[in-house]
């Protein structure tokens, strides 16, 4: 039996839609393993898939904004441990990748809406900064940014 995921291991996706289908298939595998330790392996596979999307998308100007969606998803995955995955996180990932299925140039507005959706869903997409870290030496400026 051949699946989108099997096809990916053979060759890189030819189009953004192919890539989006592969990413969506990965998310479905995550959904089956929520709260199980085997989820970690599926997360690693999704992360690897996302990295492979960079060279595919960066050569096509019309996919530039979808590459920002990929970076957004990567940022979210980098900010979560496997225990932090919830149905809400998976829904946001599904929504993000499904947006890539349509043909034609990927608009900035669509990326921007996804960015806002991640934010509204409380999904972190950046590092956690602790200004009160005990490592911070306050003898110069104190914890001001």
């Amino acid at each position, binding site marked *: 039996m051949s699946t989108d995921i099997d096809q990916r291991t053979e060759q890189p996706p030819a189009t953004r839609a192919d890539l989006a289908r592969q990413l969506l298939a990965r998310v479905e595998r995550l959904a089956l393993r929520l709260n199980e330790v085997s989820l970690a392996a599926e997360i690693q596979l999704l992360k690897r898939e996302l990295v492979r999307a960079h060279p595919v998308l960066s050569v096509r100007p019309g996919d530039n904004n979808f590459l*920002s969606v990929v970076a957004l998803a990567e940022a979210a995955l980098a900010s979560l441990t496997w225990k932090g995955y919830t149905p809400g996180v998976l829904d946001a990932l599904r929504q993000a990748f499904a947006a890539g299925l349509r043909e034609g140039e990927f608009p900035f507005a669509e990326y921007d809406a996804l960015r806002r959706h991640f934010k509204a869903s409380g999904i972190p997409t950046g590092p956690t900064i*602790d200004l009160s870290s005990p490592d911070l*030496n306050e*003898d110069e400026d104190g914890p001001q940014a």
Partner: protein
Amino acid sequence: MARKRSPARLLLDTSAVVHQLHGHTLQQAAVRKATTGGEVLVPVFVRMEYLRGVILNLIEMWCLIRESVTVQDAFIDWSQKMRQERKLKVILRTVPHWLGGHEDWQSKDVTLRRLGDLILRIICDFDEAHPRPPDDPLACVLGRLDIPRQGYDDDLLLDFYQRFTVVQEGVPNCRLCDFRKAQRQRLRRGEIDLTSPEVRSRLASNPGFVRQSEQAEEAANTKARAPSCDWCARLGDTIIALQVERGVTVVTADRTFVPLGELFGRTVVLLPSLAELKRREQDA
């Protein structure tokens, strides 16, 4: 009929904004708790400090990665820069660590794109969280600079950096001098001396305050009469505290504001450290 009470007015300083936007969930919750039901004010000056402290540094990191042989080289050089400039070291240390946790972070192109997208995202997040700043008595030019909302392009970062540094290095078209004059009169009328040896000795255990006091003394003695962004960088906490209107409470994670609030007659809510918040959570 009972009079409706107006909500408390709460001014977030830059450290409180960093807690709110980038803090641990407990720190974010602490900011929410401190501001619930209140009207939150984030001055243009705080946006300037955020742009200067977070965004400009991240763009410099982006450029350093681009100009280095490897991402790892760039991170090593970056950590050496941190040792030299202790300011903002937490932010400067956290972001490379976070980027290094990504898959295939050694790839320059991939890491540059991730960092570039992060920079644009966090500017948007700031402006969406605080879309309407209060009136700005300083008319700060840097605090109003923006990046066009459009698809990612390396030039968005570089153009912003260039516009920011041109203002920083020149004479800004702001009202710093008027503000300075008005505040000096106000302090004189209120017999408030930020720079007196008595105040400095009483508050010697607060190094942030002592530094502000020293900078304020230097500012008072300067002969220069043109505005300079350098003064705002050196006297940031004092300038924020001075623009807090009567009846407004300062919410901050920076202990420097506690004595400034006392001197200027303003209430200060000090956000707990993460260690303290974790202790409280365990005790609960």
